[in-house]
Structure formats: structure tokens, C-alpha cells
């Protein structure tokens, strides 16, 4: 099957990219400082000799390339190692990734469901009052950084209106659960970050769908479809939308990768227990194994997102052939 061959070939391309990224992060984090120094800072009872012994214990005294090769060989047997602070990296990252994906995928799904109809409507009724309102709001929305929007939402809905919790994924003690139900409580916590994610993705997608639809609606094959007596719905949804989706899929794929990379910021804003927040906490103490683990995961997810993007538009557009 050509599809399987394509997948294998694409995966082979991913190997050098993956190695490059991990090597880069590996080197940079070691240039950033000495975790032993940070962990023992201000501790007057510890001697330089003892610090050196700790470094030896974790293998931090060896040359960087040897450390990298060792880490890589462990990765091949799916061992991400242990955190300097205790606990296995796989466990830490594994707990975070579900929370991260929950937020990302939900936000992505909701924003597409809302943005595509709005974009189509705006293109169809170009320059109408509603179109101008929607597309200029989308422009404003695109210009607001997601972290700023997050803080603004927390202030308004969490602090002033007190409608939603301002952070976390669930209440700490059982008596605070919303209606005493753990599921409802989690949904309640999920609302605000999801809203922010949705808005953040929504705005640029609206603009993109609108401009992409306008571009397609000018094409001769749309005029030809009208000349064949097809109905407005068939023209708009069957012919125009499918063609307009090609650039949208590309963009959303890339944007999703960008969002994953932005997870450290957003998750910190909402104190969301995902890999992004974990990354920030562990970067502050230079917990190398955990940083590496998160980078591996985000890299893999981004690469997979790109792969899914390629497959999707090959499916939509027959001119892009997979073989």
C-alpha cells in the first residue's frame, strides 16, 4: 500500500529532526547552569567535594556527548530515566500529557466547529454589517496573546464575577467540589482555560476560512457550477468549502504545533497540571531528565500533528499524491 510506504518514509524523515531537536535541548539546558549548584544553593553544610560526588552519581561530570548517547540508548528501550527530584520521568510526563491534550484538543475542536461556519458566513455575506463586525473582532482576537487573554479571563470571570475557579484542574478538598460531584467539578475547572484556548484558535481560523472561501468563490469552477444550475448549498459546501479547506488544514496543523509549544505559558497561567506547567517548574530547578522527557513528547506530538496534516490534505486534494 502506498499509504503505508508513505508513512514509513515520513517517519524516517522524522528521525534526524527528532535527533536534532533533542541534541539541541540537551546542550542548551546544560549551558543554562548546574542543577547541583541550584539544589544545594545556600546550604553551608555541603562541601564542593560532596557536590562533585552528586554530579558523579547523576553522570553530570561526563562530557555532554557521552551523556547524550547514554540518554539516547536509554530512550531506545523506552526509559526516560528518573527525575532529580524523585519519581520516574515517564510517570510525571504521562500524568501531565492527558491534562494537556484534554485542553488542546477540546479547544481545537470547539474553535473549528465555531470558526468554520462563521468564516463561511462572512465570506458569503462579504462587507455586510455582520461580516465586518465578525472579521474585525477576529482581527482583534488574533492580535491578543493567549497568555494575556488567559489572565484577563481569570480576572473577569474568576476574580470579579467569581463564576469559575481561577486555576487548577479540580478542587483540592472534597467539600469544595461543585455540587459535591468530582466530574462536575473538573468540568467547572476546565471551562475557563477551554474558553481561552477556543477563542485563541478561533480568531485566526475565522479570518483564514473567510479569506480562503473568498478566494475560492472567485474561481471559474464556482461560476461554472452556477451555470450548471447547482443550488447555493451544493456550491458553497460541496465545491467551495472543500477547496477552501486545503490551506485551512495546513494552517491548523502548524498552529496546533505552535500551541503545543506554547503550552508552558498557558498552563502556567491557569495552573493547569499539564506537561507545559511541569516543564516550567522543572526548568527552574534544571531537572534535566524531566525537561528532556517533555521535549521528547512535545516534539513527537508536533511531528505527528504535521503528519496528520499532510495525510488530511492529501485526502482532500487529489492533486497532492501520496506515493
Amino acid at each position, binding site marked *: 500500500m502506498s499509504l503505508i510506504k508513505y508513512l514509513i518514509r515520513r517517519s524516517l524523515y522524522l528521525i534526524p529532526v527528532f535527533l536534532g531537536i533533542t541534541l539541541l535541548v540537551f546542550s542548551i539546558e546544560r549551558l543554562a547552569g548546574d542543577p547541583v549548584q541550584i539544589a544545594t544553593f545556600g546550604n553551608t553544610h555541603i562541601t564542593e567535594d560532596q557536590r562533585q560526588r552528586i554530579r558523579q552519581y547523576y553522570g553530570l561530570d561526563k562530557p555532554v556527548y557521552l551523556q547524550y548517547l547514554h540518554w539516547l540508548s536509554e530512550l531506545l528501550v523506552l526509559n526516560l530515566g528518573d527525575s532529580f527530584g524523585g519519581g520516574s520521568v515517564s510517570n510525571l510526563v504521562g500524568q501531565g500529557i492527558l491534562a494537556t491534550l484534554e485542553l488542546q484538543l477540546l479547544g481545537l475542536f470547539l474553535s473549528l466547529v465555531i470558526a468554520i461556519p462563521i468564516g463561511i458566513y462572512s465570506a458569503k455575506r462579504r462587507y455586510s454589517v455582520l461580516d465586518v463586525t465578525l472579521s474585525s473582532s477576529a482581527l482583534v482576537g488574533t492580535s491578543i496573546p493567549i497568555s494575556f487573554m488567559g489572565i484577563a479571563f481569570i480576572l473577569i470571570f474568576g476574580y470579579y464575577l467569581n463564576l469559575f475557579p481561577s486555576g487548577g484542574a479540580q478542587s483540592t478538598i472534597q467539600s469544595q467540589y461543585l455540587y459535591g460531584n468530582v466530574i462536575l467539578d473538573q468540568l467547572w475547572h476546565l471551562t475557563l482555560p477551554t474558553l481561552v484556548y477556543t477563542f485563541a484558535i478561533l480568531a485566526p481560523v475565522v479570518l483564514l476560512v473567510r479569506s480562503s472561501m473568498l478566494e475560492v468563490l472567485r*474561481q*471559474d469552477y464556482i*461560476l*461554472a457550477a*452556477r*451555470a450548471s*444550475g447547482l443550488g447555493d448549498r451544493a456550491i458553497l459546501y460541496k465545491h467551495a468549502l472543500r477547496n477552501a479547506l486545503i490551506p485551512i488544514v495546513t494552517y491548523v496543523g502548524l498552529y496546533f504545533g505552535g500551541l503545543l509549544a506554547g503550552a508552558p505559558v498557558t498552563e502556567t497561567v491557569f495552573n493547569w497540571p499539564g506537561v507545559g506547567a511541569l516543564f516550567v517548574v522543572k526548568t527552574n530547578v534544571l531537572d534535566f531528565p524531566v525537561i528532556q522527557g517533555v521535549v521528547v513528547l512535545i516534539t513527537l506530538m508536533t511531528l505527528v500533528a504535521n503528519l496528520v496534516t499532510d495525510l488530511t490534505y492529501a485526502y*482532500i486534494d*487529489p*492533486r497532492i499524491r501520496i506515493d
Partner: protein
Amino acid sequence: MAETLLRVEGLRTYFYTWAGVVKAVDGVSLHVNKGETLGIVGESGSGKTVTALSIMRIVPAPGKIIEGKIEFQRKNLLAESDEEMRKLRGREIGYIFQDPTSTLDPVYTVGEQLSEVLVRHQNLDKKSAMDRAVELLRIVEIPDPEIRINQYPHQLSGGTKQRIAIARAICCSPSLLLADEPTTALDVTIQAQILETLKGLKDRFNMSMVLITHDMGIVAETCDRVVILYAGQVYETGTTEQVFENPKHPYTEALLTSVPHLALKRERLSVIQGNIPNLIEPPSGCRFHPRCKYAQQICIDKVPELEPMEEGHLAACHFARELKLKSPVTS
């Protein structure tokens, strides 16, 4: 007297752009009799395509039909509902566009695009629409229709794509076929084949045809009557013989003499000096006067009326009766 299928009277279609109102079609009248082929000739920008799109009522924004009458099968098309027009398009009037590469949707197969029209107009189910689509490909002389039907436009040659566009236009055997420069985008050898196919289909399905072109050679070969458009107005009309052998408008003469002709052995090809005028503020009087070698003061001051020269032969020129215009056909 032949029965009239389509009659357009005083059609005005304007485009409301930021730069101003473009009077793309400004008072065009013409008619098509049953079974005949009418040629609409003019340079790029003379309003040929907009006239045809107006007949279908699919002028793209910011264009608008602002005045006129379009009578087809004794129905006033400008008074029909949108739904009635949709039923008419593709079923009673077929339309073939200039560039076959851009008029087929790139993401659907040939079969999907043909059967979609059949399903819409003839209440066929998908399976029988597909069978009919294969048959249509055979009718427009495409080899291996069973293979072509499942291919996408980018896998086909320009000539084949145009044949598919033709198949789509005639799939419901319309009584009128509007062919807008159907061969302009194709190789010369393919052009002749496509024209042959069109002629054959016209007879086979008993259609009338409007052939839009800027090629006087094609008109001579294919059309029974011809309308010469310039700057959105009709400047001469008559049977092909009348217009070719005895042109009454200087613009027609210029068009005829600018056709390369082997027998005439001219050193240089004659060209019409200047360009088609700006249609936001067209020239006063006769719109052709800035480019006309016979122009007088009256041509600047007064708009010429379309006047009969002989039975069925009309021309809009102040000097139509006085000028002895040459035709390369008679010389």
C-alpha cells in the same frame, strides 16, 4: 420566418467598482433563432462574456443587470425567480467557458461533476447518473470513457477537459448552448476538433448556439449570423455573408483585415490602433471614434443609431451608407 428562441433587448449590465461604474454591457440587443448559430464577436473587454453571463443571470458581483429584457422560450428571464433560473441553467441553457482548466473543480472526479448535474436536473439516482455520464463522454468523443470518468481534472489534457465541460453543458440536451470562446485556450489542432464536435452536437440535439469569439475565421466557419460588439454596444449585425462580404462598420472592417490570411500575402499584419476604451467614462458619440480612420466631427458629437442597411443587416455608423469598406473576403 424562423422562430426566435432568445431575444435580448436593450440589456445593460454595469459593474459597480471602487473606481466607478463600468458600463460593460450598455444597451445590447440581439436574437437567436431556433437551430441557428449566432456569433458574438469583439475584442477582449467588449462585453461578450458579460452579455452571455447576463442571459444566464450569473453575473458575478459587483456586476448587476440594471435594464433590459431577456426573452427565452417566451419567458422573461429577468422576471423569473431564482429557483426557476436554477432549473433553467444547465437544463435549458448550457454554458461552456473559455478556460477548461479552471472551470472543472479540481477536487472531484469527472464522473462526480457530471453526475451531480444529472442528479439535480433529471432526478436520476447516483448509479444511473454515472452510467449516463459515461455515455455523455462517449458522445463528446472522449476515448476510454470508463477510465476518464474516475479521473480528476489535473490528470487530463486541455482538450479532454474542454470536452468534459461540453458534456456537462449538454448533459440535459438544452435548447440553447452558450459557448464562450470554447477554443481560445486550446492548441490550433484541438480547436478545429472541438468546433467540429460542437457543430455535430448542435445538429444531433437540435440546439441553437451562441458562439462567443474574437476569431473571425471561426465565425466564418461556424456561424449563421453574427453580432459585432464594441465597448458594450452592438455596432453591426447580420448574416455571416452580409457582414463578411459587405461590412458596413469601420470596426468590422478593421476586425476582418486584422485576420492573417495566406492568400493575401500582406507584409505586415494590420492591427487596430489603440485599445478598447475605458468603460467607466466611454468616449462621446460613437465609442469607436478615437480609433476610427474615417472619424468626423459628427462621430464625436452624436451617438449613431443601429440602422438597417438591408434585410437583417444593421450597422451603427453615421457613414454606413457612404463608406465603401473593403472586405478581404471579396477582394
